[in-house]
């Protein structure tokens, strides 16, 4: 596998906070025939302290399984997770408890992920029932609860209210406060704003940004909304059918995508262009993501790729990067070239893709 994608030493001389190598997770689906669903296929990634890694991809690509595995909610079949050099799967007892404190999660749906029978205060303080040594006295817990609610922009006096008395944005703030309760180093945010309205989404994004600046917490930010990821992420990993097909800095991946899938994803996502000055040629992929029960041979994207040739069906591409951008890697035999990307002016003519929009009227 590509060293370029994940060699931590190339990014920072120190050990990264979280270093994932060759992570593979298969699910066994009851039924006849081939019943192995490969949700994660040799995933490599790393996250540094105080950094935001954006994870993008369409539904079913394995984003959420990856998040769950990073939190040890799933046992990987192969590969290692190193958290500051230690493998959490080897930990037991008190050490494991201490590790769990350091990685927390915020869930997508603030309407389903909060227990309606508990008050906001109880939800935020619940982690301390397990991690008793963190804030041992009742007084310390009460003080910390007030502090947490203020940090996330809630009124401390609302601690006695139940979740349904809060709006969607406020509920997500409760979820964030709960994740912060154990002072984690990494927070996995699984679609944290996709259930929220635009104006409220902006408030929550600002809050997350502010918290990161103040607390130095690292985020793994999972989203299907590219404009949100572009706004929050330092680096981006693009997933397709259980593989990370491209990684790089946000600027590299968004402005100079190398993998055709990344290019198609960027192209398919609607742009808010109020000037109307730039006509856009759009790559519209045909078909849908193949079933992960029966992934294509060779390159997993080849069935929808307009650049695919015979080699793509026989050999899985390994990560490649250009000399100019060694940390920007894509798993493709025929990465997008500057000419490909420039042809926004003269239409991209993919075999399997339809050129959609001539200039917008």
């Amino acid at each position, binding site marked *: 596998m590509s060293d370029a994608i994940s060699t931590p030493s190339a990014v920072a001389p120190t050990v990264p906070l979280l270093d994932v190598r060759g992570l593979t997770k298969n699910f066994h689906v009851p039924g006849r025939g081939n019943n192995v669903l490969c949700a994660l296929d040799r995933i490599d990634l790393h996250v540094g302290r105080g950094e935001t890694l954006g994870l993008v991809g*369409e*539904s079913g690509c394995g984003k959420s399984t990856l998040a769950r595995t990073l939190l040890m909610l799933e046992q990987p079949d192969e590969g290692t997770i190193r958290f500051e050099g230690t493998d959490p799967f080897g930990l037991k007892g008190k050490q494991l408890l201490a590790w769990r404190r350091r990685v927390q999660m915020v869930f997508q749906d603030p309407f389903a992920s909060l227990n309606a029978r508990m008050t906001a205060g109880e939800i935020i303080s619940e982690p301390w029932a397990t991690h008793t040594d963190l804030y041992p006295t009742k007084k310390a817990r009460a003080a910390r609860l007030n502090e947490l609610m203020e940090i996330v922009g809630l009124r401390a006096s609302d601690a006695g209210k139940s979740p349904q008395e809060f*709006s*969607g*944005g406020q509920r997500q703030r409760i979820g964030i406060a709960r994740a912060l309760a154990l002072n984690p180093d990494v927070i996995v945010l699984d679609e944290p704003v996709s259930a929220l*309205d*635009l*104006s*409220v*989404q*902006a*408030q929550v*994004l*600002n809050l997350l*940004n*502010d918290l990161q*600046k103040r607390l130095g917490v690292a985020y793994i930010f999972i989203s*299907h909304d*590219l*404009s*949100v990821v*572009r*706004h*929050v*992420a*330092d680096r981006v990993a693009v997933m397709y059918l259980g593989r990370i097909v491209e990684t790089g800095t*946000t600027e590299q991946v968004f402005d100079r995508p190398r993998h055709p899938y990344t290019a*198609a*994803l960027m*192209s*398919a*996502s*609607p*742009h*808010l*262009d*109020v*000037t*109307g000055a730039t006509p856009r040629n*759009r790559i*519209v*992929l*045909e078909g*849908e993501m193949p079933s992960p029960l029966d992934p294509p041979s060779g390159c997993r994207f080849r069935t929808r790729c307009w650049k695919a040739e015979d080699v793509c069906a026989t050999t899985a591409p390994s990560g490649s990067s250009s000399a100019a951008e060694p940390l920007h890697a894509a798993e493709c035999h025929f990465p997008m070239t500057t000419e490909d990307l420039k042809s926004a002016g003269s239409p991209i003519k993919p075999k399997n893709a*339809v050129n*959609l*929009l001539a200039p*917008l*009227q």
Partner: protein
Amino acid sequence: MSTHTQSVSTAREDLTENEVVLRVTGLDVDIRTPKGVLRAVNNVSFEARAGRTLALLGESGCGKSMTAKAVAGLLDPVADVTGGTVVLNGTDLAALSPKQRLKYAGPELGIVFQDALTALNPVYTVGTQLSEAFRIHQKLSAKAAKVKAIELMRHVGIPEPESRVDSFPHQFSGGMRQRILIAMAVALNPRLLIADEPTTALDVTVQAQIMKLLRDLRTESHLAVVLITHDLALVAEEADTVAVMYAGNVVETGPVREVFGSPKHPYTRGLLDSVPADVGRGADLNSIAGSPPELHRIPEGCVYQSRCPVVQDVCRAIRPALEAEGAGRTVACHFALTTASKELDHV
């Protein structure tokens, strides 16, 4: 696709492009709840034109779906149209009896819902569901209707329709289900298609396919499309005109480029500023403070007063009417923003 247009949906000769197909004027919808009667849609007016897309844009609870349901005659039993007219091709739907309405509006108006899995009946094959329109409105035999259903499926881009016509909804992917729903909506070659968040549940690459299908259908049969969405970027790319809704009221209308290019209502401006695009990494977005008022707590005066950065005393007393503000544009604000307005830049 052209061969099928002959048999399935022909460009209607009685329609010329840009002709007004639907004109909604002063529409009010009330909901009866334990908390009392709530005004979900208040004095809403807009028009949809043949071969054009009008977007109803707003956040959840703003009344955009309720407006669509009122136009389609699909309101829940607890909701009533209490005022205004819905004129589809010269006939006021609101004045028709339910039976007349079914007969008249059934073939003239199609609607596509957000969640195709719940909109389709899980116990009937898609062929049966697609045939229904032909059997009811054209009195076709089951066999003839099925032939039409297959044609329709091919028309909306479902591969191998002959073998898939007997499949059940759960056997299709999300994108394919949405195509089936669109096929049902355009089966009788309507004048008006209402698409209520048609791609919200879909991935972007599939969204692009569905929007292309809707655009093709619109072009080939001069369909008037009402696109209901919360997605500003989708509106920017797909719609010709936009009506921005907030708390049951239309606050601004006009051509998309002009409204998005120089918004006149502070809410429209706030929405545009909330879009994360093109704001540097780590920079704060100009979010709108607070959240929309609940329907039973809508204040006197302007509906946006609690979140508006330029609010004045008059806004708390008098609700601004939707008034013409330049060519083809309307805005409901006492202090409509001008292009040069800078007062919002630093809030």
